[in-house]
């Protein structure tokens, strides 16, 4: 009765619903994954999502998968994983609980699935309400002519003669300590990177690849490049911490991007 059931039910539905149901069978691509499909199927029960029969839903879903197989439709792996899981859930719901088996009960699993469906539906409703609101640029408008509120930033740097002399003295005497200093030819320090970045970030209004901040001549040699990349990354994080930069990486190993926060300060 299982797979026939869905199609009988569908036969009894309005044309519109039938069209929707057919679309469901012919065009799985129209669904955003198994949960979306389950949500659509659950509507055929015509009850509040809180009173949904998960057992019935599992039957509907499994008949759908059966039917898809008959029609030799390629189902994406996640649909099959869901089918497997629902088959398991169905057996948990139908069979008396096995005391030797650990883990959540069939009812707990069913309740969570019902919760997920209800939550997804709630988010869809919320999205629809949000998009139904008055929107800027469509229903209400900002000032059409920005008269330009300006922010003029003047930075004055302070340094006195003592700073200057000490700085010079520091350089002229540092070679005394030469034996203790590691060879830094191929090392770009975080301090240097930080100094470099501070001077440059003011011009970064839009997202910019972090690698574009590497100093000239540090791109080719892999050792130098590695050091410069690490230092620039550490310096970027420091600037993020100081609230001067934003940083983002959209995916693993994707380019790390930076953007200045200066203007919003």
């Amino acid at each position: 009765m299982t797979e026939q059931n869905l199609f009988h039910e569908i036969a009894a539905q309005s044309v519109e619903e039938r069209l929707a149901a057919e679309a469901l069978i012919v065009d799985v691509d129209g669904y955003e994954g198994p949960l979306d499909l389950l949500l659509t199927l659950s509507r055929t029960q015509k009850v509040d999502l809180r009173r949904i029969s998960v057992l019935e839903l599992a039957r509907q879903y499994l008949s759908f998968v059966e039917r898809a197989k008959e029609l030799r439709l390629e189902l994406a792996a996640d649909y099959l994983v869901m089918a497997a899981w629902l088959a398991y859930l169905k057996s948990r719901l139908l069979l008396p609980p096995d005391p030797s088996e650990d883990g959540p009960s069939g009812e707990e699993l069913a309740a969570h699935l019902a919760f997920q469906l209800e939550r997804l539906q709630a988010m869809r409703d919320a999205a629809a309400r949000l998009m139904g609101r008055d929107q800027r640029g469509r229903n209400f408008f900002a000032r059409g002519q920005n008269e330009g509120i300006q922010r003029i930033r003047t930075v004055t740097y302070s340094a006195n003669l003592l700073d200057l002399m000490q700085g010079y003295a520091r350089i002229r005497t540092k070679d005394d300590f030469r034996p203790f200093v590691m060879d830094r030819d191929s090392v770009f320090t975080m301090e240097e990177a930080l100094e470099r970045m501070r001077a440059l970030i003011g011009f970064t209004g839009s997202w910019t690849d972090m690698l574009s901040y590497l100093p000239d001549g540090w791109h080719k040699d892999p050792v130098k490049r590695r050091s410069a990349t690490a230092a620039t990354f550490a310096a970027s994080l420091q600037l993020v911490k100081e609230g001067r930069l934003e940083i983002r990486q959209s995916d693993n190993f994707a380019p790390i991007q930076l953007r200045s926060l200066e203007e919003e300060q």
Partner: protein
Amino acid sequence: MEQDPKMATHSAPRESDSLFDAPPMAEQERMVEAVLFASSEPVTLRDLEGRMPHGCNPGEAVEHLRKRYEGRGVRVVRVGEAWAMRTAPDLGFLMQKEIVETRKLSRAAIETLAIIAYHQPVTRAEIEEIRGVSVSRGTIDQLLEMEWIRLGRRRMTPGRPVTFVVTPVFLDHFGLESARDLPGLKELRAAGLLENRPPPGSLPLGQSEEDEDGGAQPELFEE
């Protein structure tokens, strides 16, 4: 109607206990009006305070101004921590010329946006758990680019995943004073639908890694 602005600005100090007396409130209101009017983007009280003469109370001035514009063709609205002037929504029909065609957002983008707004701060894995499918990079990128969402603080859980939150630009676009004013937020919270309820045991939803061996277990699909 009002006192002459020049008079107000240049009038001799009244009997005051301070040499640097703040301008009268009516004058402060004018100042706030001019700044909010001139700026197409919301202006924070802090920014207002920085622009106005010492001792001004921009918060009070904004409140006066907001009342003054009640029922007018232009309104003073709050956007997060800032204030802005916007045309009254019921007059949108006059503004056909000004309407900017915005890029049509995909259903996935709209749902992702709603989930971020209602569940913020929320991780990508949580968005995927709620939607039951993986979130494409393009969707997040698009929302980031529109500046409707931004990165929030990292979640203090293993892997320290980044979270997403909505921005003042989002609030401004949808005419919201704060994310707390999202429609139906209270009801959703009361219904427990904004909880991050972990699945009992493990579920196949939103855990795309598990799809890897979906094909290796064909016997599971037979009943």
